[in-house]
């Protein structure tokens, strides 16, 4: 009976998707009936709003505005139009036949790398940029690690005529110099952050400092399913289109649901976006792969759920990499986008409830998978996404040849050419690091 209802829901979803893409994701949310977050933004014991009082009014306004916007046909129509005719949705689901031979299972790639700006980040940013305009604000700020969210924000700001400032750790501006240039070309101001570890978490701190002083005319466009409520919920709702499409495409292509869904997890927005539509499908295993760096036992990693403990950072209660005094630990990953000591609270919740399983992938494993996808499929993945690919190789061997695995290929790897060429020794002498 449940299967039959599912079948018809799928058919209905498919018929109406061209016209009401964003609304459809909402309908599916209702079908999934996921009880989180509650009205105050708690996913079980995670999430919430640990933020300065000065931001409370803005967070309340944002919560109200998001709630009315998602029920406003004009808003959803405009977002659907941008997703279809600007970002290029739906993104493809590509069967990776030669890569599958190495995974020992059938691997389907959800091609977020083909979106405009080259990653899944655009899905969230278009939504938040429209909300910014709707709230009568004229400026957006953003934090960025690899630069993908910064580029997406700069892009949406250019499109909608908003002023844009992007905070980026100084270490990341160096390892992702191409994205810095892209943001500046798009008219954004990029501010290298020189405090702390000079990576993503410090960029978040600096963006919050800006926001508390500029909140009257500025929206902080957070790039992942993190931060104080309503951000984890709102960013999830803007990203869950990934899984909604992938679910339908997988049914169309294979005649059924996948056995596993795999994604990389830093803050975790591509993973939540991919997982969410599958959460009610009990037969589908969900795997998140975190940045294992040099290996979790070395202490040089960013695998929050694998190696962290409960804490509060950047406005949310979640798992966190911290020392005995509750001081945030410095993280390491070859991937700037995963180099973050916290994780979105909904992942902590899925981890605690056991609905999703989280593991680490080392730098070396990620780079092997990076190279393998290049040479077997002619697709250059982002190093972030390569962590998901490396995870798929492991999951595939565990589940066997009859299994189908959907992997979120969250971004393309053009930005990573310098890092990859250096890693693999492909740089002409004298040009490497």
């Amino acid at each position, binding site marked *: 009976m449940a299967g039959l209802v599912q079948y018809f829901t799928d058919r209905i979803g498919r018929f109406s998707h061209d016209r009401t893409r964003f609304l459809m994701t909402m309908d599916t949310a209702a079908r999934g009936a996921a009880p989180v977050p509650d009205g105050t933004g708690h996913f079980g014991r995670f999430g*919430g709003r*640990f933020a300065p009082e*000065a931001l*409370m009014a803005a967070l309340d306004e944002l919560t109200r505005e998001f709630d009315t916007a998602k029920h406003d046909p004009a808003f959803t129509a405009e977002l659907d139009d941008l997703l279809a005719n600007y970002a290029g949705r739906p993104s493809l689901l590509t069967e990776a036949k030669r890569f599958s031979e190495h995974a020992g299972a059938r691997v389907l790639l959800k091609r977020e790398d083909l979106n405009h700006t080259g990653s899944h980040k655009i899905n969230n940013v278009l939504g938040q940029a429209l909300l910014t305009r709707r709230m009568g604000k004229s400026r957006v700020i953003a934090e960025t690690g690899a630069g993908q969210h910064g580029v997406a924000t700069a892009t949406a700001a250019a499109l909608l005529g908003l002023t844009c400032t992007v905070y980026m750790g100084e270490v990341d501006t160096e390892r992702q110099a191409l994205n810095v240039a892209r943001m500046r070309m798009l008219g954004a101001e990029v501010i290298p952050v020189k405090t702390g570890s000079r990576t993503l978490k410090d960029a978040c701190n600096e963006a919050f400092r800006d926001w508390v*002083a500029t909140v009257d005319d500025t929206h902080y466009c957070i790039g992942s399913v993190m931060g104080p409520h309503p951000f984890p919920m709102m960013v999830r709702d803007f990203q869950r289109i990934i899984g909604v499409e992938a679910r339908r495409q997988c049914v169309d292509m294979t005649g059924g649901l996948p056995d596993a869904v795999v994604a990389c997890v830093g803050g975790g927005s591509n993973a939540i976006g991919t997982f969410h539509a599958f959460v009610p499908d009990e037969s589908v295993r969900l795997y998140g792969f975190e940045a294992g760096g040099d290996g979790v036992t070395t202490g040089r990693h960013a695998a929050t759920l694998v190696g962290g403990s409960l*804490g509060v950072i950047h406005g949310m209660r979640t798992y*966190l990499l911290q020392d005995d*005094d509750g001081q945030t630990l410095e993280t390491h990953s070859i991937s700037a986008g995963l180099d973050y000591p916290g994780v979105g609270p909904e992942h902590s919740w899925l981890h605690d409830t056991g609905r999703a399983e989280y593991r680490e992938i080392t730098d070396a494993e990620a780079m092997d998978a990076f190279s393998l996808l290049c040479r077997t499929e002619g697709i250059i993945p982002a190093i972030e996404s390569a962590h998901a690919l490396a995870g798929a190789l492991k999951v595939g061997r565990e589940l066997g040849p009859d299994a189908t695995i959907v992997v979120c290929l969250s971004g393309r790897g053009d930005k990573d050419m310098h890092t990859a060429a250096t890693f693999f020794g492909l740089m002409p002498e004298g040009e490497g690091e």
Partner: protein
Amino acid sequence: MSVQTAFDKAKADGRAALVGYLPAGFPSRDGAIEAAKTMVAAGCDAIEIGLPYTDPMMDGPTIQDAVHQALVGGVRVADVFRTVEAVAATGVPTLVMTYWNPVDHYGAGAFARDLASAGGSGLITPDLTPEEGGAWLEASDAHGLDRVFLVALSSTDERIETITGVSRGFVYAASLMGVTGARSAVDTGAPRLVERTRAIIDKGRAPLPVGLGLGVGTGAQAAEVAGFADGVIVGSAFIRRLLDAPDAAAGLAGVRALTEELAAGVRQGR
């Protein structure tokens, strides 16, 4: 001893209270204690000891530099309690100002117990609101500690009512929308915020002083703030004196001179 006693005493003197902030471990473990004792001797009515934290999201460059220096120097939570103990021994109420995670990680109950046994008066919690503060409300009740929450220019009347309803010791009015750090002028919205907060407190049963902080760094500003608030809170300006001093003695002299200037200020405002 509740920090409210310091506000009451100042009020009885017909002036505003002067509250000084300094992070533990800055410029060194002992240096912080010496500087805080100097602030007390020169006229501070209450002291806030900052718990240095890796991610000071609400602090501007001056406090960021100081806490970074303290953390690099190896300051631990235990040092914060030792600093509180030494400063509270001077007889002035001594609070800890901290981001929530270090307390959360220590355990709200254990932190309250150890703070109380060090003679501390309570906590100021810039990134904890009453809505998320259940564990702290319980622990502070159990150990009889002050809990100072913040109100902001952007706070609605409903929120001010909630915040003042659970605050104890005083309520911290943030004078501007922004991070910590001295500014050239007091925000024009500050008197209005204090006035709104007072009106809401007056509707309730218990009196609660309103202290104003963020951006205050000179005697003239202290006098201006003392004209409308019950207390004047100064942090970055003290740190600036220590950061800019060529040696420890000069740093303490600078802190003493600033305290005297501010103490004169809070006596001119009325």
